[in-house]
């Protein structure tokens, strides 16, 4: 009864008003958040395979001492590209894409605040990722590690274009991330369904908000420091050149001021996703919602005060490092609150052990194991022993692969039906899970022991007789088991896409708004805009909730349906005004291409920077002229 306005002809009108242009121009000009979100995620998964294949070559080279599969030069490029691909091209863009796809659905709106900015961000990301890999194909990929310390990465010691690729493309990628962050913040704060006060906001949306704010404050220092390095390399400056008064430690401070929050930029959104999946499969609301929100926000804040724990071996004063040791260990508390909130929910719920929950349980175990090695590393005297060894490699794969990639797959199994309308197959899904769990531990557990045995990271080979042979061989075997798991997923993905079981609108009987619309959702998301009175607006109160209809508001005046979204107030989501949104556009692509020309052009000729900047200015003019279409003729 409450869904009165959603008659069939409203749906048709909405479909017409929100439709994309057909054909190639339409595809290139798409601005809908679901298209952009899916593009982000699919591209990111492709880069995951690339990064994974790079890892397989690394593992093959390290399987035995003195192996000659790759040259030292190529090896250095491989781990640099592996780390950079996984961090910059896979995890962060995937999570941005997930948020771009899900947030409008979860908060009950039709698109995001700046649709063309969304498209621009995606194109920049794609171009930067491709440009970085051109370097690898040409054999001149970056080779100074993913944190790229000068002076090794500076003009004096890194000749040829290697590092130029890193400087140009990573800076460009930050532009994309910043665009996504601005987009997410405004959308989350201003477009929530009426009644969705901050305390009724789903935890994934909270986590996307925290992630976006962290991006806003963490990425600029990286932009600045890579600008410095670029100027050292392209314009003969001396930021990091000791002989001319430069300071290599400046890079380390600025990089890790970004780099440490960056790892929580990856962790926080998956913690949000897990906080959605756990209640859905425990059939009850999350225990301690308020504490969970507080923990996510606390992690966001505190993570800006930890960066020095990556520099314990740099010889900084003991008093300073002790402060950072204390701060780093304190991050245990919000992490533990979240972990126990999930456990308590599972304990007090009625479990359905479906694939998404299985991956979540794998995640919990591996995050705890990776978390405690993090606590150990935070202890600065201990860190001086294992810093830059395989113990650290083990730590960060436990938290990154176990703590981020596992829940990414949980999210894929959970939301795939929403995105595609089909379920992912169970049998291959189970094979995928167990191969991952086994392969993961066989690969990365032995690396703890290698670290204790003194094996440094980033070595292209090692000499026999140091006791490193068997653990390395084991790790290599594990990596190939992981690859089999990835293969199982790949097959499952395509098979289910084409012939998976139909999902229906709400295969998991979950409580939040994204399940209140069709699967896949129509281009306008909701015909009747929802109104919200609870954290789980689709569930009755208490344990073992039953579905209930979602209330809605009358937004579209009959006969005057436009491409508009509802703006609500930031705190308590009261309806405020209607916001006209632009239609699809080629300007984002044009601007992204011009910006890419400016950045990548810096590698060859500074004149190209000027050309790219001029073209960008032109594209911006076109963009804003299009932004203000004359008001439509009155109805």
């Amino acid at each position, binding site marked *: 009864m409450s869904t009165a306005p959603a008659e069939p002809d409203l749906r048709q009108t909405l479909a017409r008003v929100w439709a994309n242009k057909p054909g190639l121009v339409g595809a290139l000009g798409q601005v809908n958040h679901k298209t952009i979100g899916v593009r982000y995620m699919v591209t990111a998964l492709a880069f995951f395979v690339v990064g994974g294949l790079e890892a397989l070559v690394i593992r093959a080279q390290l399987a035995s001492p*003195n192996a*000659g599969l790759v040259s*030292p*030069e190529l090896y*250095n490029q491989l781990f640099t590209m592996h780390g950079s691909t996984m961090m910059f091209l896979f995890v962060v863009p995937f999570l941005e894409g997930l948020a771009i796809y899900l947030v409008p659905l979860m908060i009950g709106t039709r698109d995001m605040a700046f649709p063309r900015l969304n498209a621009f961000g995606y194109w920049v990301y794609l171009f930067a990722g491709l440009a970085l890999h051109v370097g690898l194909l040409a054999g001149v990929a970056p080779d*100074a*590690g993913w944190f790229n*310390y000068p*002076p*090794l990465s500076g003009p*004096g010691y890194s000749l040829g274009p290697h590092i130029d690729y890193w400087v140009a493309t990573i800076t460009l990628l930050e532009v994309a991330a910043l665009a996504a962050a601005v987009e997410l913040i405004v959308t989350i704060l201003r477009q929530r369904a009426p009644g969705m006060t901050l305390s009724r906001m789903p935890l994934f949306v909270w986590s996307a908000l925290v992630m976006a704010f962290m991006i806003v404050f963490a990425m600029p220092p990286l932009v600045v420091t890579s600008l410095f390095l670029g100027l050292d390399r392209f314009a003969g400056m001396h930021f990091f050149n*000791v002989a001319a008064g430069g300071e*290599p430690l400046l890079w380390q401070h600025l990089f890790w001021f970004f780099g440490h929050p960056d790892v929580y930029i990856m962790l926080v959104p998956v913690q949000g996703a897990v906080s959605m999946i756990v209640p859905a499969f*425990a*059939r009850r*609301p999350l*225990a*301690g919602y308020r*504490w969970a929100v507080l923990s996510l926000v606390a992690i966001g804040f505190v993570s800006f005060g930890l960066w020095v724990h990556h520099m314990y*071996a*740099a*010889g900084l004063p003991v008093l300073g490092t002790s402060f950072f*040791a*204390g701060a780093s260990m*304190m991050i*245990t508390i919000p992490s*533990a609150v*979240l*972990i*126990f*909130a999930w*456990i308590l929910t*599972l304990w*007090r*719920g*009625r479990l359905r052990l479906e694939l998404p929950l299985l991956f979540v349980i794998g995640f*919990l175990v591996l995050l*705890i194991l990776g978390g*405690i090695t993090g*606590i*150990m590393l935070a*202890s600065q*005297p*201990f*860190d*001086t*022993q294992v*810093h*830059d*060894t395989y113990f650290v490699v083990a730590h960060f794969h436990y938290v990154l692969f176990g703590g981020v990639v596992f829940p990414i797959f949980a999210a894929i199994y959970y939301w795939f039906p929403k995105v595609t309308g089909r379920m992912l197959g169970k049998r291959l899904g189970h094979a995928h899970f167990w191969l991952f769990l086994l392969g993961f531990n066989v690969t990365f557990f032995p690396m703890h022991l290698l670290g204790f*045995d*003194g094996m*440094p990271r*980033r070595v*292209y080979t090692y*000499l*026999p*007789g*140091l006791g490193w042979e068997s653990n390395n061989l084991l790790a290599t075997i594990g990596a190939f088991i992981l690859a089999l798991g990835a293969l199982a997923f790949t097959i499952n993905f395509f098979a289910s896409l084409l012939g998976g079981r139909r999902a229906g609108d709400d295969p998991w009987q979950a409580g939040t708004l994204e399940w209140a619309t069709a699967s896949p959702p129509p281009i306008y998301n909701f015909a009747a805009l929802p109104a919200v009175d609870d954290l789980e607006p689709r569930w009755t109160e208490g*344990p073992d909730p039953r579905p209930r209809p979602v209330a809605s508001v009358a937004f579209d005046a009959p006969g005057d349906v436009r491409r508009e979204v509802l703006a609500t107030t930031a705190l308590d989501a009261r309806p405020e005004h209607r916001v006209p949104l632009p239609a699809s556009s080629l300007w984002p692509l044009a601007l992204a291409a011009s910006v890419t020309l400016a950045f990548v052009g810096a590698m060859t000729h500074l004149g190209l920077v000027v050309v790219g900047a001029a073209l960008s200015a032109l594209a911006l003019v076109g963009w804003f002229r299009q932004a203000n279409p004359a008001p439509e003729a009155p109805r």
Partner: protein
Amino acid sequence: MTRARPFIASALLAAGCQGPHSVLSPAGPAARSIEGLWWVLFWGTIVAAALTIVLIVFVVLRRRRVPGPGTVDARREDRWLLVTGVAIPAAIVLTLLVATFRTAEQVARPPTEPALTIDVVGHQFWWEVRYPDHGVVTANEIHIPVGRPVRLRLGSADVIHSFWVPRLAGKMDMTPGHVTELWLEADSPGVYRGQCAELCGVQHALMAFLVVAQPDAELAAWLEAQARPAAAPVTDASARGLTVYRQFDCVACHAVRGLTRPQQARAPGPDLTHLSSRRTLAAVTLPMSRGNLAGWILDPQAHKPGNRMPATTLTPDQLHDLLAFLEGLR
């Protein structure tokens, strides 16, 4: 592509290296303090982690069997969260921090004032070692007394390296423009392997060194011998070898104190004055032997691809003479 020639572990063992290259078999006070800290960290976290993991497995298994709906009791749940999520972790973490700060104190300063200061400078891909009070310059091999701390002043000639002897102490970066300090002490005589721990270029992997701990008398003798300039060639072959050495421009990069000096103020290659007294070649890539020396000089890139020494083409006679000269540098 080229390949590193296998380095036979027995060479190291023969050189007296005891046990593995392991953080957990400490052979000096600093490494031992840290090993003690490790066990505190290990037990402090592993128990909490294991209990949590057991709890997760238990919850999952139990809940699959228990029928009926779950329960929701927000106030009790919040209380539980504060205990398990805040109180217990905070208590554990504070304990770990106390242990951390105590160890940090212990390893920050040596137990007694070091009598000996050694300067170590990292180069792309070898270690320059100087004893400023004794006029000794050598490479890739650091001799220290047993049972007494030495002070190391660490610097770099090019990029960032990191100085690390796992069995003796934690690592310390060598950053250009900075001089960092570290102290080392070994409990008993022996050879301890060290390794560069910060990515410094293509041959970061093969940038190792040896720390040789010796009783005082041996160390004094070693220092005295190393401080002497190189002996003039005694045989005809080695005299011709010196000519070869000059002729093929080895002097451009390597000093042989008393006979030749490098043309640059800071030598780009290791000091060779007492080359043949060293245990290994090219930063512990090859054991010292006539054959390896010959192989190294003819084609350094085959053994350590990407290192900074160019190949030299010599006739067999020239090589023979050059080796005679180098072997005379004891």
